[in-house]
């Protein structure tokens, strides 16, 4: 169905008038997602009712699957602010096809992260203390501020798409409101970029500042440890790839061609460069850490790895399998243009970020911090998996309904509100 040559007309998406795939297929998919969502809700009810003791978290592993999921989902959700930057600020016109999807993915990942954070925090009702009694020295304060504010920005960016819904579009006020709002998008995109840059970084900074944990501690510049910049770089490198992956999945499910190849090609080239940059930076950081920082903390490279769950294979994966390999696939034209390799590269890059977030969160806590302590291990139980999958199901639901009823992708039909 795909034609290699990049021609504007023929690849013009046949959206707009053709029916959006059979309702039955759509309903079936949404039902499955809803089922997982309800299962997650039950797990959440148990957690909120009985206390976090129902999970496998403990006093060594205060952070576990949920925090790993938060960080991964927020990192992969960076496609929103980055494509916002590319489209609204740097005016890369072809991205108009994908910017709306990016915004929805961003909205889903941030609201999903906040949802699971409300479970993970011991006293969710007091979370507004993060603003009221903020501790300006803490990286987590910055994360709390920027994630919640950026979620508001994402909702504002998502609002015009919602107002693009057929029934809402008929109400003139809403139509005009949505249209005017769309004009302000560059402003919100700018705010989103500022907020996202800092909280993506602070999520990394959270681990880098822990001078009690030699595994994750890094020196840095001014108040930002190097992990601050690594997290930002890895987020913007893999965000767009994640968005393309989701777009590919949507196309496959709805059996419709939505985004011309040249858009994905552009994103791939940008991500490829950023991924190369990130992999290089990650390599240098790992080297400096292994050669200089660990020995000074009384440890050596071998002593911070243990068994399979905290093994060196993950570091190897992060740098080579999910770092170098995707760079090559994305930067070499021949591979980039064959979809199979493109999607493999995207998947590997995203997997690399998830591994990195897992290692930074869980392995940091597993390494014995006192010499007379031993390695401890952590494995999530069904409550944690259920709540985690709930977020993914929530994402599928929101993206599914948005795709079906909201004008995400630009269409030929002039009557319909479309935004490019």
């Amino acid at each position, binding site marked *: 169905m795909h034609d290699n040559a990049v021609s504007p007309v023929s690849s013009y998406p046949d959206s707009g008038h053709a029916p959006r795939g059979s309702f039955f297929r759509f309903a079936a998919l949404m039902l499955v997602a809803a089922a997982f969502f309800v299962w997650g809700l039950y797990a959440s009810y148990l957690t909120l009712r009985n206390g976090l003791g129902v999970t496998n978290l403990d006093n060594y592993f205060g952070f576990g699957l949920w925090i790993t999921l938060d960080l991964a989902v927020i990192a992969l959700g960076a496609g929103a602010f980055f494509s916002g930057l590319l489209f609204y600020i740097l005016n890369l016109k072809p991205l108009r096809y994908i910017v709306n999807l990016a915004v929805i993915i961003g909205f889903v990942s941030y609201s999903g992260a906040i949802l699971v954070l409300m479970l993970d925090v011991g006293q969710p*009702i007091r979370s*507004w203390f993060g603003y009221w009694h903020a501790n300006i020295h803490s990286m987590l304060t910055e994360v709390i501020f920027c994630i919640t504010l950026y979620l508001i920005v994402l909702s504002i960016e998502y609002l015009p798409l919602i107002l693009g819904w057929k029934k809402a579009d008929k109400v003139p006020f809403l139509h005009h409101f949505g249209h005017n709002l769309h004009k302000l998008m560059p402003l919100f995109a700018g705010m989103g970029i500022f907020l996202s840059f800092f909280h993506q970084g602070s999520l990394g900074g959270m681990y880098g500042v822990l001078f009690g944990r030699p595994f994750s501690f890094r020196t840095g510049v001014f108040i930002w440890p190097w992990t601050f910049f690594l997290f930002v770089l890895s987020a913007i490198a893999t965000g767009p790839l994640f968005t393309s992956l989701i777009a590919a999945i949507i196309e496959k499910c709805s059996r419709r061609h939505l985004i011309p190849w040249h858009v994905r090609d552009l994103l791939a080239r940008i991500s490829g460069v950023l991924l190369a940059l990130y992999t290089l930076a990650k390599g240098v950081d790992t080297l400096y850490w292994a050669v200089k920082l660990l020995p000074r903390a009384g440890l050596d490279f071998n002593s911070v790895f243990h068994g399979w769950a905290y093994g060196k294979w993950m570091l190897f994966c992060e740098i080579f399998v999910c770092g170098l390999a995707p760079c090559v696939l994305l930067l070499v034209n021949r591979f980039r243009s064959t979809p199979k390799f493109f999607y493999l590269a995207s998947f590997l890059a995203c997997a690399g970020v998830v591994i990195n977030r897992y290692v930074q969160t869980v392995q940091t806590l597993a390494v014995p911090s006192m010499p007379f302590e031993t390695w401890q291990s952590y494995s999530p139980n069904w409550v944690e998996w259920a709540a985690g999958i709930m977020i993914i199901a929530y994402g599928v639901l929101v993206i599914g309904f948005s795709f079906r009823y909201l004008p995400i992708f630009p269409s030929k039909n002039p009557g319909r509100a479309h935004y490019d």
Partner: protein
Amino acid sequence: MGLSRRGFLALAAGAVAGALASPIVWKTLDDVTIWTQNWPWIPRLKPGENTFLATTTKMCPSSAGTIVRIVGGRPVTIAGNPEHPLGSNGVTALAGAEVQMLYSPSRVKTPLKRMPDGNFQSISWDEAITLLAGHLKNASRTKDSLLCISGDQHGVTANELLSACAGACGSSRFFLMPGEIQPAARAARLMGADAQPGYDLEKSDYVLMIGANALETWGPVIRNRRAFAEGRPHGEPPATTWTYCSATQVSSAAAVNSWVPVAAGTEAVFALGLAHLLIKNGYAANAPDIAGFAALAAEFPPQRVSALTGAPEALLRKTAVELAASAQPIVLAGSQNNSGAPAATVMAAIALNMLLGVVNKEGGLTFLPWPATLLEHALPRARQLENDLCAELAAIAAGKSPTPNLALIYDANPVYALPDKHKLLKAYASIPFKACITPLMTETAMASDLVLPLPMGLERLDDVCNPYGCGKNVYSLCVPVLPAPLTDARPLDAILSATLAQAQIALPNFADQEAALTGTKPFTIRSLIAARAQKMHAKEQELLKGAAHTDETLAPVSLRFATDILQKAIKPLIQSAASETVRIAPMTRMALGTPDTAIPPFGVKLIRASELKGTELFALVNSNTAARLGLTPGCRVRLCADSGASLELGVNIYDGVMDNAIAVPNGYGHTAFDAFSRGKGRNLADLYSVAVQEGLGSEWKVAGLRLERA
């Protein structure tokens, strides 16, 4: 004019604006947040005036003086009483939990009667007294058909009341639960001293502990540890030397000067080995039969001692040299499972102290006169200690002595604590009617026909007199800190006097009229205490305020080595030491409670991760033994003994255990009590069997230990 859609939207917008500009949202958010700080289901604190009451702990074998903090009439925490001769600022992990134990879920609330279907039904005190009186009356008709078991190792008044009651019913079968004091008293008597061996640790500069874990469970541990601490200023080399010989390098071993691996049950051999070395370099005692003893000691050269006990020769010689070099040495000996060593062990230790010439000397082995017996029919303390419960139950099982009609158990848990379950407890079960006076629902209470609630230590008047291991005479009272017990419990004197009266049996009177105080009823704890205080020239009012009475007078003794008896007593020890290829090394910790308390609520968090995982108990073996026996960490084994008993355990590797020893923790395997103890691990006592030697009491040992992969 009806409201248009636009009008409605405007109204709603105005309402929202109004709400946001009023406290509705923000005050509610603030209050809900404060609600999370004061959830109604979280217990509230109650202020009150702080008062402090001094008493002595009866729940903990340390018998230490304690101070209970009371807030507005509620006891909350317990601390040590530094003025008390057996106390210090600190308390043991068990005594520290005594206040919380007042509210233990396994408290017996009311008298309970076992119904035919096996369940208990709560009955009134009158009903219970009538039932018990009936059985007491039948038992008093035939001689010796009442069996009394008392768990009070450290007091005299309760035992006096109980044995006087038994005497009044024509029975002399009054027994104390097995402990360290019985073999010590027997050894002293056999060596010519009708007195209680005492150990003046405070003034000793070299304390050799053979098997006796004096800093954890042996004797008045708080006083022992105060003496230990006083000899070791912080950071400086210790002024006193403590050496600990045991099979496991735990608790005391971490702080003493040197740990000597000695297999459990071979303590006597190690002592004789030392005696041999001392005699070889000129030590002699002026006792008549020194020659015989020297000959016996000569049979234990270092090589043989090392082979039998597992202690390296070098350490044996080093200990002997240190003993000789120290000014005031003292040797303590006891069992490693804290339930009574064989008499031979204590005899060997007394012999060593004789050789070192520290008998009745400062810092040495002091002999304390037995406390007076006040009531008629009551057994004197010395006779009480001669009666051996295990020997008696073994005799009943073998039919050599008649099965009693009635068993009266006071504050004791024989069903859990006694060894040789197949033999001894079968005999115990054959007793038709068993009445158990206990504060907590123990295994014994569950197996009894009548359970009578006794007030806890902090709720009753009781006394502590010369607990075994102290260095001088000490007498102090356990004073109630609550106006009345929290449950419908009655003290022992109330129960016994009501029962005897109902059974028309005359209440025993004071033995000698001089002690008969004016007007007070003799058969009460209060009057017995008053009489004893007067006899001791102690001030009763001070005692009731928690002060202790001490007395330095010692019993003059002329000791002999009694080599013939020692030779007979040591034979089975050597025989089993030689035959066993692998031996049990019991580990006892105060934090896990005694058989009468089980694991206190605050003790659960002190259980070592290597000992218990959920309900599965783990034995510890060192890497050499594990390799030899083919054991891998986490594998499961079944320990079987000749007596047919077996114990299924997991195995953990820990190199603080000597070779050929399997270290098994004591104090687990409870089937009664509450969720803090029930169902956790296995009871090590089940594996032990009892060997009774004529005139030498009974000896706990694991005969023919075999290991099978479970």
